[in-house]
């Protein structure tokens, strides 16, 4: 049995997504900017995608910018608004556990003369609203808080944060990286006072290389790349029509049953966590209940090297992640998130992330638990002495 539990790294495409993309790539391959019929046909797919996204987020169609994925959405959101609003202030706020697409961009902005406050998190990986309140000052122009953490699955109090920020100063721009949270929780930017929302296609059974950024139309924003002035000049470049339509198809499929699917995932997650607790010396790092995403279980197997466990599971066709996939290939990498929730170095080196999708079944999780019961004692036998 092949068990794919690395859905926070990427997901399998829905077959319908692949179909519509094939149709576009092979038949309706026009450039949506072309004036002839082929162009118009391509543009219809964009219309379709925009409709689906705006309907689900309950926003206007001028507020969606298509990008190449989560990283570009985050970069455009942060650099594009910080540079356009620098005259109003030069202070930015984010959290210590953001994805590197945000953290690295913040580092860049620091070099450009902005000051950044990194909010700490508690053991569960959740920020404290008081910290946020205290961090905001007259110079603050932008707050960026991720919806769901990619490593441990902690879910931030986004609506409350939005209310707090706008209560202090309605001019402060609020960005939310929802790459992991989108399609796992209902998100309505207007209601939650979110001005910028980053979403990626391939985390929700869509294609890689595509994503979007919701931009509140009242926000001042500069482009970060230049060219043919597509998408109102904010994001130049020929639109990735197959990718965009594919992503929209995925959203169209996933959204109607979101509540049921998420409830089912929560149940599976609870079951899996209970199963993990049967193993001695295992700590679950993901927060439970509403503070935890339904699809991420991060656990530390004390005394085991996560890479070894990962490969041992791989031999059984079970695919998981040690840390987050984006980080796993870096030298001497230390996860900012795991550090921020207070894990020791030893604990970090034994940490594995299991992440689920709509495809995950209880049979798969049982199989995984059984294998873990077999493998863990074996691996624990061979430790460094």
């Amino acid at each position, binding site marked *: 049995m092949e068990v794919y539990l690395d859905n926070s790294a990427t997901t399998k495409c829905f077959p319908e997504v692949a179909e519509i993309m094939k149709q576009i790539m092979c038949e309706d391959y026009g450039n949506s900017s072309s004036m002839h019929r082929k162009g118009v046909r391509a543009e219809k797919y964009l219309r379709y995608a925009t409709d689906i996204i705006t309907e689900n987020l309950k926003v206007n169609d001028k507020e969606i910018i298509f990008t190449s994925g989560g990283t570009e959405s985050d970069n455009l959101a942060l650099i594009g608004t910080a540079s356009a609003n620098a005259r109003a202030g030069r202070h930015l706020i984010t959290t210590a556990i953001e994805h590197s697409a945000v953290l690295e961009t913040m580092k860049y902005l620091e070099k450009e003369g902005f000051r950044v406050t990194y909010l700490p998190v508690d053991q569960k990986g959740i920020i404290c609203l008081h910290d946020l309140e205290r961090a905001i000052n007259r110079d603050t122009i932008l707050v960026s808080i991720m919806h769901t953490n990619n490593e441990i699955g902690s879910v931030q109090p986004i609506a409350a944060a939005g209310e707090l920020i706008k209560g202090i100063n309605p001019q402060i721009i609020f960005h939310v990286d929802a790459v992991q949270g989108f399609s796992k929780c209902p998100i309505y930017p207007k209601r939650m006072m979110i001005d910028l929302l980053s979403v990626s296609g391939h985390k929700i059974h869509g294609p890689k290389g595509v994503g979007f950024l919701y931009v509140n139309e009242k926000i001042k924003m500069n482009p970060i790349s230049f060219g043919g002035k597509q998408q109102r000049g904010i994001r130049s470049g020929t639109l990735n029509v197959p990718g965009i339509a594919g992503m929209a198809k995925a959203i169209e499929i996933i959204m109607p049953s979101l509540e049921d699917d998420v409830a089912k995932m929560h149940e599976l997650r609870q079951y899996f966590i209970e199963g993990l607790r049967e193993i001695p010396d295992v700590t679950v790092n993901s927060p439970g209940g509403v503070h935890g995403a339904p699809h991420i279980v991060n656990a530390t197997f004390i005394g085991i090297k996560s890479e070894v466990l990962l*490969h041992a599971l791989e031999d059984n066709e079970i695919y998981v992640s040690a840390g987050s996939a984006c980080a796993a*290939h870096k*030298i*001497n990498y230390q996860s900012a998130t795991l550090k921020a929730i207070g894990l020791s170095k030893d604990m970090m080196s034994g940490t594995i992330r299991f992440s689920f999708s709509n495809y995950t079944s209880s049979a798969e999780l049982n199989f995984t638990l059984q294998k873990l019961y077999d493998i863990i004692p074996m691996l624990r036998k061979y430790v*460094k002495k």
Partner: protein
Amino acid sequence: MQHSNYYRSFLIKYAEIGVKGKNRYLFEDALVRQIKYSLKKVNGDFAVTRTSGRIYVNAQSDFDFADTVYALKSVFGISGICPMVAMEDEGFDRLAEFLVQYVEDVHGQKNITFKIAARRSRKDYPFDSMELNARLGGVILDAFPAMRVDVHHPELMLHVEIREKINIYSEIIPGQGGMPVGTNGKAMLLLSGGIDSPVAGYMIAKRGVKLDAVYFHAPPYTSDRAKQKVIDLARIVSRFSGPINLHIINFTDIQLYIYDKCPHEELTIIMRRYMMRIAEQIAQETECLGLITGESIGQVASQTLKSLAATNEVCRLPVYRPLIGFDKIEIINLAERIGTYETSIQPFEDCCTIFVAKHPVTKPNIKMINKHEKNLTEKIDELVEAAIETKEVLLVQQ
């Protein structure tokens, strides 16, 4: 330097082959073979010819100059690569005219010192070498008044060789040196994913030795990426050494068995002894005449003189350790030069570090080690045999 459309030929200067007496033709044949092999990847058709103690590479079609030089620079046995113009002999005046043109085209700057190094190999040419030097020198001085002659340390050495055709060259691009691969038998390289072993393989190949390599894979303690990294390293080394047969041994069961049965401080030494035994057995099956390792004295616990003696003791084949007296920084410099460093430092290092004791022995006692290896008697032969039987062999080449 880059006059790609100017030169159509290269004169190949060889390193030590010149001194090989009656075996010389064997070395030259090997060199021609290696040159042809290296040029296979280059865009263009080439003829590689050997005439009267000279090797020429002649382009038969349009070709990429930079790629050609890059390829030739990877061939052991070449000391210098001279981009060359070969012209028909149409009389001295034509030669003089051409030489002026050549200097004009190839050497923009004219306030430099020069020397003509003429050589008349075809004795029916009307002027001898000395006369040619004088006459051509005069021609250049007339054409470029800013140039001066310096016979001792010229900035520009203009070689003019009167053979069947007239060869003119003035640049010597340094080659890789060494001896052509295939002139000195074959040896088995113990290749890990680290910095040292690929360099060790390069150095032995440089002496004309063909390489086979063995890698010890320990899933799940080492990942598929670690294995791919070793394959990538072998591929980079094969740029110089020619194709390498890479033998991949699954070492996990042996490692675990040693872990179970032997004292932990000695795990690494005993593990290495079994790696050497296995490597030697494969070496003998594949007609390798020695083993090659990247060891250097004192670098880690398993490379002290006592540890080296303990690992050396288990093989009868000679073990070549070309890096034995090198400092780490020297090895890194070499690794950077041959292009393996970037790959070596990728972080999917073997996770089998868990098998390294926190305090491994640095002065192993061979008697004790032999005694502790007796603990393995029950199953070890069977495990070694199984590991060799199930080995995977990949042909790795550029």
